């Protein structure tokens, strides 16, 4: 796999300064300082012992995907055979074709894409703006605002579900994609990460731009944002994946069958086609594969984002 190690690869962009407060103080950011930490000598026997644990665990962790694909490729009648079909020898695409014929899966994918993209754009712009203000500006109330925003992490989303739903309904956004997007258009994780990153940037370029007559927005948009690309990428990818995978809120807001997102739609398949497990598994594949591809493409951003503050649990 052509993946790079975000913790040791020297080619990876500078990361936010050390001492990320959400992580306990005593955990230093493992900067790319020569001694990569892997230098620990290990006898072949020790390595073999490690692998004897790590490999089976990986197999268990990835097994649901194997079983998902196997069941989806197994003909409907064969899926409920005893013993179960462990390898799809008589593989068929029937389940996938009947899924696309019987459920508006492409529409669900489109809805998911639209929602995830809108939320991602919202996060990138709003979180960066707020992160910029918290990193660079001085204004009365700044510390209070920052405490409030970070403190809101303490509030379980479930406490706000009912009033949010009433609010969305009053705005006429119930059963509307905007009703899913609006309450997720900014988030703490992104603000926090952008602030950390922007604090680590040198200020000379911004000052030079101001001297050249750039206004505040131009300094932010033309100077700070391009310099913050690595952080923007992390925020963007995390936001996209989080929004794509979100379940509870879309489940509450959306009810029109054509407006569902993939997780909600696929979860409803099991009620609609409860006896057709192959079709359900085909739905799970359609929902899972886009995020798996995204992960394989942007792996280092994922792991970096988790390290900086795994707010997504």
């Amino acid at each position: 796999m052509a993946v790079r190690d975000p913790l040791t690869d020297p080619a990876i962009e500078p990361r936010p300064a050390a001492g990320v407060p959400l992580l306990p103080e005593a955990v230093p950011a493992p900067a790319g300082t020569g001694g990569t930490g892997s230098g620990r000598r290990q006898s072949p026997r020790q390595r073999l012992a490690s692998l004897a644990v790590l490999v089976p665990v990986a197999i268990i962790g990835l097994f649901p995907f194997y079983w998902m694909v196997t069941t989806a490729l197994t003909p409907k009648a064969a899926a409920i055979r005893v013993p179960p079909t462990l390898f799809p020898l008589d593989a068929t695409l029937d389940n996938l074709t009947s899924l696309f014929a019987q459920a508006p899966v492409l529409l669900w994918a489109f809805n998911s894409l639209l929602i995830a993209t809108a939320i991602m754009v919202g996060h990138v712009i709003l979180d960066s703006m707020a992160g910029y203000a918290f990193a660079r500006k001085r204004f009365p109330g700044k510390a209070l605002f920052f405490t409030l925003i970070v403190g809101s992490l303490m509030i379980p989303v479930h406490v706000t579900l009912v009033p949010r739903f009433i609010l969305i309904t009053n705005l006429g956004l119930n059963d509307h994609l905007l009703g899913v997007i609006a309450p997720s258009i900014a988030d703490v994780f992104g603000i926090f990460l952008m602030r950390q990153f922007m604090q680590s940037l040198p200020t000379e370029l911004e000052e030079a731009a101001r001297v050249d007559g750039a206004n505040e927005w131009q300094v932010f948009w033309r100077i700070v944002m391009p310099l913050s690309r690595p952080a923007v990428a992390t925020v963007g990818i995390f936001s996209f994946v989080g929004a794509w995978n979100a379940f509870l809120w879309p489940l509450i807001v959306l009810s029109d069958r054509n407006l569902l997102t993939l997780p909600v739609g696929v979860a409803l398949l099991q009620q609609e086609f409860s006896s057709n497990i192959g079709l359900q598994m085909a739905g799970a594949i359609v929902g899972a594969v886009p995020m798996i591809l995204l992960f394989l493409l942007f792996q280092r951003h994922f792991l970096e984002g988790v390290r900086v503050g795994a707010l997504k649990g």
Partner: protein
Amino acid sequence: MAASPSVRRAGRVRRFWDRNGPGYLFVAPSLLFFGVFIFVPLGWSFLLSFQEFGFRGSTWVGLDNYLGLLGDPIFRQAAINTVIYSVFTVAVWVLVAMVLATLIHPLPPRLRTFFRAAYYLPAVTSAVFIALVWKWILNANPWGLANHVLSLFGAGPLGFISDPSPFAGANVALWSVILSSVLTIPAVGVVLYSAALAGIPQELYEAAETEGAGAWAKFRHITVPLLKPITLYVAIIYTIAAFEVFDRVYVMTGGGPGYATNTIVYLIWRTGFRFGDYGVASAQAFLLFAVIATISVLQFRALRSDVEY
């Protein structure tokens, strides 16, 4: 010759704005968002928790919603289920994450990257899809994979997620859901522990080795104590995640059979959005809030340490 007070005030406002305006404008959209979608709903929900919703609108009922919940067997079972689920999954997740990260750490970079990716992969997909597969694996029929495996050992078939009969302090269905969670790799924990391990100075291990410490002694006396701060962090985020379990329960059991696998958040969703009982749902949510906050504080106290290196 002095300017009039209003002109002076205008000048002050102007100067204040020139100095601070951009800062306010940059945070304004986010602040508005947090106000409208988090802080206002928080207060609103608190008020709702003292009201009863009927066909004729809402009436104030004081603490009735809360008192009713404390005496409600359904709520009690949901609370107990949530605690059992959380205790077991968090304990296993934290332990597994620490062990996996420790085992990955000394490997060559290429292998490390491979395992971190392999372990993180399931975490990037929605829990809905993984839970759907687990529901299929843990189904009660003889053609279910779990029952097939049992039959190889001459055991089973078990009802798994559809069996509400008591077992080991809970019931078979709840243990089946817990099993599916425990077999999900704690990917976030592995990544966080890996980052923390990279920060432990190599000299500590070398010093221990010269004194003849084996792998277990080094793990027990260097790695575990030095990882304590990150263990605190991982334990808290996993406890919160476990207490808020919803997707998995919704997909695998729908809280059933009966109320066997009902959890707090599932109950909140059902009360609020299946039955439209906004007052009781809000009271349930605030009780959850109180419990999560208490546990976070307790864990923080219990695991707090001043380890520096």
